[in-house]
């Protein structure tokens, strides 16, 4: 894992299936019809007799120990040293799709040229101090990108804030 492994966090309570992230991603990366770097999934199921429909964005997790990287026979996939972003070198890619079979999230995409392309966490934007396009576009502010420590701290703070609210409300009774 890179020293400051960057990660993407989606607050699933906030996702409303608007797909702004998908569109923003496509625009940012100039993607034609076909490849979708990030995808919002719809899952319909029944739990305890209740019918549910949940929306879960499934982006590239830029895994610390990326299975796609291990699976690639030509070494076309690598992790950036400074932040662990997983990138593919299309010049080395032979389009065998082994990365797709290895990725538990089904992230690798294949365009017309048969080579793999995928979410880069908008590395070009990160380098300029900006958020990735999906995080920027999300109207519900459900997507956050940061180092593992930053995200972990943000989630704890969110929890603590909601607990403080609950305690304060209780004190008013």
């Amino acid at each position, binding site marked *: 894992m890179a020293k400051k492994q960057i990660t993407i966090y989606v607050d699933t309570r906030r996702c409303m299936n608007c797909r702004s992230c998908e569109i923003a991603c496509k625009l940012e990366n100039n993607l034609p019809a076909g490849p979708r770097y990030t995808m919002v999934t719809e899952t319909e199921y029944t739990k305890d007799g209740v019918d549910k429909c949940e929306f*879960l964005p499934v982006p590239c997790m830029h895994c610390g120990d990326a299975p796609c990287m291990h699976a690639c026979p030509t070494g076309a996939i690598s992790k950036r040293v400074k932040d662990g972003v997983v990138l593919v070198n299309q010049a080395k890619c032979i389009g065998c799709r082994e990365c797709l079979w290895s990725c538990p999230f089904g*992230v690798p995409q294949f365009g017309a040229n048969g080579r793999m392309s995928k979410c880069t966490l908008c590395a070009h934007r990160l380098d300029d101090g900006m958020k990735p396009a999906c995080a920027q576009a999300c109207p519900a502010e459900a997507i956050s990108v940061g180092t593992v420590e930053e995200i972990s701290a943000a989630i704890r703070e969110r929890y603590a804030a909601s607990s403080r609210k609950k305690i304060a409300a209780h004190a008013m009774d």
Partner: protein
Amino acid sequence: MKIISIQRDKCTGCGICQAMCAVASCGRACPSESRIRLRRQWDSETPFHDVAICRHCAEPACLTACLMDIISKNPATGHVARDTDKCFGCAACAVMCPFGAPVYDTETHKMATCDFCGGDPVCVKVCPHSAIKYEEPSEAAVSRRSRQAERFYEVEEARL
């Protein structure tokens, strides 16, 4: 372009695909000459059984390796085909293939690879776990993301 896609976490390594492919391709039960061959991984650290099957790569290593120039990539379908007439079984394709997909057919004495059974693959029909599909890579990607979402929500039955 449709290709054979394998959902690895559904594969139990039963070998039916291998057995039936052999019957379909060679007319006899000879799993070692099947166009899809199982590699059972027995240790608990490898989470899946692997399979040797032609991936129909965008840039096939076998195409460059072939001494007789008989391997070609169909620009329309993207499928990698071989004109076996001139094949003399040197196995250069098998050596260069990162997946060891080409197999030596002992009856025709030529190398052979998966040709999707002419568009209706048998392995897809016989896999008891529906681990093998004949689909576009984009469909394969979508189904994997949905499966991840199902795991996340602890949905018991796979909907694939």
